[in-house]
């Protein structure tokens, strides 16, 4: 599968003024952001399975223990409930812990802690105790991983009030959004699309500049059709936009980035502008974040729409093992087909 694409205009425009940006993959940009945050704030600590000596199974935390020591980069017992639970306790004491759950497929043991405690500690104490923590988890398919390693279940967490769910789609946004997540005084679930950990590289300047949370990013402006996506699927979405552009269809591409809370304003404005929307996500079709976006747009922009909103998504099946995962993941062709259907409506 070819997932490598050119850097888009929006990003290159951002970095033109940067003095010496160095080409980084997403996983390297994440490592840069983690190191930067630990350097600037001694309260930032890291914990998880294999994050220390091994530098994480994807190497996102590589070299951090050597740089910041055992007290700040902690290998924990293999216990996701514990990891998320002690992260809450540490956060309650003013530390800014960043926990890594090795794969999102293993996060379910941590759900009770995230849903019942992290998300509501500030609210239940009426602001007396906050929970400034980040849980990082690689997610999504397409890397030929074994069972329980490829699911995209961001919608499970997007439904929970009190936590932010953030998904970067490029090295630049991974760097800027992760810094924001760490600096934020509330809990953030930072989901890293591992299919593009190394598939995309772009110049990233380690300048400590954060990108805003709760905001969609418009990656490409257009007038005929809005393509809405996030994470790794941005790659196929941008390729589809290129293909459609060659056929004379002007596509606006929106990277949702903050799955929750959802920047509905940007989405609405684009839907009103183009009158046609397609939502592309890797997660299963039913009950996904796409359904939320479609419902919102139908509720608020129905009379501005020229065609029904379409979703191009994974299927309501278990994510297939590596041999068949290509059948599950939305392809450029499926997006283009959906676009043709919407344009011809």
């Amino acid at each position, binding site marked *: 599968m070819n997932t490598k694409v050119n850097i888009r205009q929006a990003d290159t425009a951002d970095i033109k003024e940067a003095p010496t940006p160095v080409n980084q993959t997403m996983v390297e940009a994440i490592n840069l952001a983690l190191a930067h945050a630990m350097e600037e704030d001694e309260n930032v600590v890291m914990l998880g399975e294999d994050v220390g000596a091994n530098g994480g199974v994807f190497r996102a935390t590589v070299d951090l223990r050597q740089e910041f020591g055992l007290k700040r980069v902690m290998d924990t017992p293999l216990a996701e409930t514990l990891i998320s639970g002690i992260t809450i306790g*540490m956060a309650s004491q003013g530390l800014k812990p960043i926990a890594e759950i090795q794969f999102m497929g293993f996060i379910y043991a941590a759900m009770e*802690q995230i849903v019942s405690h992290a998300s509501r500690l500030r609210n239940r*104490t009426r602001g007396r105790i906050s929970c400034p923590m980040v849980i990082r988890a690689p997610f999504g398919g397409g890397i030929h991983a074994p069972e329980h390693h490829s699911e995209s279940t961001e919608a499970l967490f997007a439904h929970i009030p009190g936590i932010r769910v953030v998904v970067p789609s490029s090295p630049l946004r991974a760097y800027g959004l992760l810094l924001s997540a760490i600096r934020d005084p509330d809990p953030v679930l930072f989901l890293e699309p591992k299919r593009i950990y190394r598939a995309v590289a772009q110049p990233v300047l380690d300048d400590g500049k954060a990108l805003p949370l709760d905001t969609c990013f418009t990656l490409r402006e257009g007038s005929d059709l809005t393509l809405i996506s996030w994470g790794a699927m941005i790659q196929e979405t941008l390729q589809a936009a290129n293909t459609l552009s060659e056929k004379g269809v002007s596509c606006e591409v929106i990277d949702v980035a903050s799955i929750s809370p959802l920047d509905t304003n940007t989405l609405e404005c684009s839907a009103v502008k183009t009158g046609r929307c397609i939502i592309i996500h890797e997660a299963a079709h039913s009950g996904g974040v796409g359904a939320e976006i479609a419902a919102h747009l139908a509720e608020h922009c129905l009379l501005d729409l020229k065609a029904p909103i379409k979703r191009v998504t994974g299927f309501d099946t278990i994510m297939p093992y590596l041999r068949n995962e290509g059948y599950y993941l939305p392809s450029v062709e499926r997006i283009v087909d959906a676009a043709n259907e919407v344009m011809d409506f």
Partner: protein
Amino acid sequence: MNRTYDFSVNATQFIADDGSLIKPLPSTVDETILLQAYQEMVLIRIFDQKAIALQRTGKLGTYPSSLGQESIGIAIGLAMQACDVFVPYYRDQATQYLRGVSLTEMLQYWGGDERGSHYQNCTQDMPICVPIATQFCHAAGIATAFKIRGEKRVSVVTGGDGSTSKGDFLESLNLSGVWQLPMVMVINNNQWAISTRREVQSHSETLAQKAISAGIPGVQVDGNDFVSLYDAMLTALKRARAGKGPTLIEAISYRLSDHTTADDATRYRSHDELKKGWDREPIKRLRDYLLSLNLWDPDKENQLQEKVKEQVDNAVTAYLAIQPEPATAMFDHLFKKLPAPMQAQYDEVKRLHLS
């Protein structure tokens, strides 16, 4: 390789069920602390009776009585230092009171007002934990923060016998040993997790022996004997503060009440068993001991009852006078700053309820 490992669990009791002394009091205990403990236990029992009465008359939500467990909470609260952090479960009114949570705040919480967890006098303590055993992980995280910062503080966490069946407890116990955390875990073994008996939770002879698997000290005490738990707490806290690691304490008690006001324990336990439970109860036991030393008498008891009832009544009056928060309060502390995408929902609630 043939090798046998020997482990044992110490069980301690100083004052017997009938108020007589089994062995000399430890040096950590004097008359002043015994008298204070007794008076605080009486206060919590009167408060408990009042809270149930409020619930029965529709002025309080579901409430978990601490009847019969007063000495556990008071022993923990009197042993802890102000700088420590208490991580309570939902039947910890006694410790919370000693930590500085006001009776009014407790009523506010059980009356359905989140401001009841905005403790004015112990801002570092965690709020009550309702899910089972999840709080043990928080306590381990808090102790980790103390260790990282080199602070001489201890996190003290409590849970019922049912909580020892959950992974959260076992994972935290395990970590506390690996990282030698400044942490004291107290299991309030009151024999019942709603209708589930202690024997159904674990086949192990004691709950204290779970500490053995974590490589840390585990002790069992008579939780209805104030002296036993108070002394064990002081020892555990001292160890933790000195950097010598965690302790697990199993305090044997008996839940004389229903699980909560929504429960009816007559459905699953016998009258005879409950009657035996009353024979071991902590307040009468300590009073009998104090009476035997001539440290207490009926006049003092009457004065105490009067004083405590007035204190509780004042708390109830203050609680009933509290005005509810505005409808928009549900948004105010969800995040530190309301995310822009949520503004429309906030405005809708404001329009519906505040205009």
